[in-house]
């Protein structure tokens, strides 16, 4: 049967083989159809979303364009290359029977920032479809990539310079493949998701509470309090002197309160609750991301048409 034309092979195939073949083709056609329209729709969503500035972005589904920045505090370190980054995704695969099988994989869910010329916004990448600009693939022979050549580390053990990865073996002879994708600080970032400004006014004291706290503080240092407000020097604060102290404390509290108000807003971007709205993060510029999605859509439609055409052809040969 090996050398016979395909049409002959299909005519001679048994029922189980035929239905299996048709099943696979239907599945491929459906996947191609879905992929085609999904990618086309994503491209249109990106094209149609107006870009907001962080300081004035409306609450809800928005597009931000800026630069990735790491948050202050504990840095995010990519497990394979030990590079300090904003986001990572890695996989370790081992070769078994000529095929690569995943041993371990992980995607970072640590928070980082997107910054434009007007402000910063905390990004929670959980659930995002990420298109990172940096992808490294290298090969070795263990469950850990021991062939990474690393520059000196900083005081806290964080990699300071770029990491150089050397394959210990060739692509075809190595037993393990390591893949790492990164968003590093300074990368341009395109983000589309649910923008929310957290107002932590509830965590701040009211002006009267702040006034009372300032007065309590002053009372602890009685001598200084008397020096400042006991104007007639009789050793006692009378009603008018106490009112003077209270007014001054109220002014100080008003200043502190205004300062708190100025710093109370924390902008966040996360996965939208509505399932029909994509959450996208990409280091590619908008037009390249759109182009990529359009090509993927084209691929999906080609898949659909090829599988659909084959399905129809086989059906006409055997079923009709």
């Amino acid at each position, binding site marked *: 049967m090996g050398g016979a034309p395909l049409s002959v092979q299909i005519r001679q195939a048994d029922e189980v083989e035929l239905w299996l073949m048709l099943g696979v083709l239907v599945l491929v056609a459906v996947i191609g159809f879905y992929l085609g329209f999904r990618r*086309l729709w994503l491209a249109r969503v990106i094209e*149609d979303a*107006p870009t907001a500035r962080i300081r*004035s972005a*409306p609450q*809800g589904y928005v597009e931000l364009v800026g630069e990735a920045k790491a948050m202050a505090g504990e840095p995010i370190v990519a497990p394979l290359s030990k590079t300090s980054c904003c986001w990572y995704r890695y996989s370790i695969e081992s070769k078994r029977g000529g095929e690569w099988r995943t041993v371990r994989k992980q995607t970072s869910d640590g928070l980082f920032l997107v910054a434009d010329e007007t402000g910063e916004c905390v990004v929670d990448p959980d659930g995002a479809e990420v298109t990172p600009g940096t992808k490294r693939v290298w090969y070795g022979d263990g469950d850990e990539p021991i062939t990474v050549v690393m520059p000196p580390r900083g005081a806290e053990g964080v990699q300071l310079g770029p990491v150089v990865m050397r394959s210990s073996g060739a692509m075809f002879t190595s037993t393990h493949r390591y893949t790492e994708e990164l968003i590093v600080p300074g990368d341009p970032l395109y983000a589309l998701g649910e923008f929310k400004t957290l107002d932590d006014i509830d965590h701040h004291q009211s002006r009267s509470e702040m006034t009372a706290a300032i007065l309590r503080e002053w009372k602890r240092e009685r001598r200084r309090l008397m020096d400042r407000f006991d104007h007639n020097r009789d050793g006692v604060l009378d009603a008018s002197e106490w009112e003077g102290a209270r007014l001054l404390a109220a002014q100080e509290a008003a200043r502190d309160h205004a300062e708190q108000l100025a710093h109370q807003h924390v902008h966040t971007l996360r996965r939208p609750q509505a399932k029909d709205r994509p959450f996208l993060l990409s280091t590619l510029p908008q037009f390249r991301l759109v182009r990529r999605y359009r090509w993927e859509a084209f691929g999906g439609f080609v898949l659909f048409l090829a599988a659909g055409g084959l399905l129809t052809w086989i059906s006409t040969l055997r079923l009709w």
Partner: protein
Amino acid sequence: MGMGAIATIAVIVIVLVYGVMIYNNLVTLKHGVTKAWSNIDVLLKQRHDELPKLVETCKQYMQYEQETLERVMKARAAVASAREKGDVGALGPAESELRIGLGNLFAVAEAYPQLKANETFQHLQTRISGLENSIADRREFYNEAANNNNVRIEQFPDIVIARLFRFGPAELLEFSEEEKRDVDVKALFS
């Protein structure tokens, strides 16, 4: 059923699904423009509420600047009127007038050190300037949303669905050239 018939059905299905996608997309764009307008409206309302406080504070110190203050209040009323009617065309010139008025007011305030030192004035000036910046940003956001809508409804194949279901263009919010010009401080004090 022949190959041709199946191919025709496949093409019809694709065209139908694509048509539905375009229709939904145009609906999203239309609502996006409405939402972008609401986003400006919220800030215009906030500034509308702050302006009388600013004018009242200024009145205490600026007895000889009634014209400047009146100009601000008149422009404020024009912006409010355009805002309430949802009239994008009228909002542009009214907003330009108000910005010029506010620019003049803050420039003139430089000549009144006591006013400049007043905490309420400082607070209101910061607040209103912040709102102005946000309004400017959201105007750009609105115009981008409107432009995206207008481009889509003129592109093929979207134009077919847009004409069929009467999706119309959105008006851009434009400020006049006069508003973009710097305030002539010298002329104010001459």
